[in-house]
């Protein structure tokens, strides 16, 4: 079914329509997968010709994870726990080293595809297993669903984050005018359309939830342009085949049973209230920060970004990867300096791979 969603003729026709509108817009998306679609299919450069710039925001979970959180994971690995995390997180440096470096030192760090792989690891060992759980609303319910089964010798180092509070923080920081948001399709799959409504109401900004095929994104942009022309500021949904107005209520329920929102720092941002997720009191024993409080007591420092790295500004949509002096020279996917070059969803990595913004 998927390949029918790539129709070049239709794409060209929409682009022509957009060009005729003579627009001058700056949109933002908050999803690494959207960035991949935009760059891979050359949509960004085509849209630019139509006067539309689509900037990436803080939409890559690996990239917004802070050096402090990575340092926590490193400490736990060095204290003899089995630390498991998703592949992209593996090579992101903390203050200096990454989890991959720590594994090279001989500590037990594993890469997993799903939290369920972690449970299989925990079932086969007597060692304590810690899942460094990153990801937005899309991923957090999977973690919650496993915690509900109360697995043995298992805990999580939660780095889960919520998207709408970050969008609001960006608007409030007011560093740049944003004419509209392309909202992430799979975060929205869980939280639904309504979760974004307060943003449109409070800040008079249009939003469109979009899927990930090139045409999804293009039509999403077109819908935003139409809202702007008509002076509307609503949440619309282009990705109706997956996203329901109310979202996935079962997943929301699971999430809410296990986690509660908490203040959280994002790379490149000051602490954003209610933008992170921590385990509720009754699941405290699965919270690595509680369980290993003593071991982690050394970590309470604010780590600086690697020298010269502009990830913070990139994640706020202020600069493009190729505007970083280290890009492609000192910093490459083989030798990444910052998080945005490590993750395949990081803007620097995407620009490097496709040779385009």
């Amino acid at each position: 079914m998927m390949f029918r969603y790539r129709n070049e003729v239709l794409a060209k026709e929409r682009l022509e329509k957009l060009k005729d509108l003579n627009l001058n817009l700056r949109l933002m998306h908050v999803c690494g997968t959207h960035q991949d679609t935009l760059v891979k299919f050359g949509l960004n450069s085509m849209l630019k010709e139509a006067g539309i710039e689509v900037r990436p925001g803080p939409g890559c979970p690996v990239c917004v994870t802070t050096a402090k959180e990575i340092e926590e994971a490193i400490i736990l690995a060095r204290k003899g726990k089995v630390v498991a995390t998703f592949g992209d997180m593996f090579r992101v440096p903390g203050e200096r080293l990454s989890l991959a470096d720590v594994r090279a030192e001989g500590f037990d760090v594993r890469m997993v595809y799903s939290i369920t792989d972690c449970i299989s690891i925990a079932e086969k060992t007597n060692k304590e297993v810690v899942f460094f759980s990153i990801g937005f609303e899309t991923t957090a319910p999977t973690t919650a669903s496993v915690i509900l089964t109360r697995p043995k010798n298992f805990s999580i180092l939660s780095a889960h984050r919520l998207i709408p509070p970050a969008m609001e923080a960006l608007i409030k920081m007011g560093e740049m005018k944003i004419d509209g948001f392309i909202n992430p399709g799979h975060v929205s799959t869980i939280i639904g359309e309504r979760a974004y409504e307060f943003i449109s109401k409070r800040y008079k900004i249009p939003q469109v939830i979009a899927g990930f095929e090139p045409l999804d994104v293009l039509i999403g942009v077109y819908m935003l342009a139409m809202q702007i022309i008509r002076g509307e500021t609503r949440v619309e949904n282009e990705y109706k085949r997956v996203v329901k107005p109310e979202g996935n209520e079962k997943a929301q329920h699971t999430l809410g049973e296990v986690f509660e929102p908490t203040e959280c720092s994002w790379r490149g941002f000051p602490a954003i209230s209610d933008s992170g997720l921590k385990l509720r009191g009754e699941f405290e024993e699965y919270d690595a920060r509680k369980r290993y409080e003593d071991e982690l007591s050394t970590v309470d420092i604010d780590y600086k970004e690697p020298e010269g790295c502009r990830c913070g500004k990139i994640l706020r949509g202020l600069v493009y990867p190729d505007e970083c002096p280290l890009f492609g020279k000192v910093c490459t996917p083989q030798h990444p300096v910052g998080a945005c070059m490590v993750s395949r969803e990081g803007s620097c990595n995407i620009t490097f791979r496709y040779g385009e913004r």
Partner: protein
Amino acid sequence: MCLAIPAKVVEISKGKEGTRAKAKADFGGVSRESDISLVDAKIDDYVIVHAGFAIEIMDEHEAKETLELWRELLE
């Protein structure tokens, strides 16, 4: 990270009490086990799978509508 791909549910294993709801899902010819405890999936449903979990059931009617709409745009 938030990558999620569609797959067709071909088999559901109810499992014992206390175990998680799992399904065998077909990703265009490759069959993989996916956890379905976050959705109410039936056999033949298209689910969207993220990090080993089905996070939603694809609405076939809406999927067809999208294609229709895109076709209409062409006319």
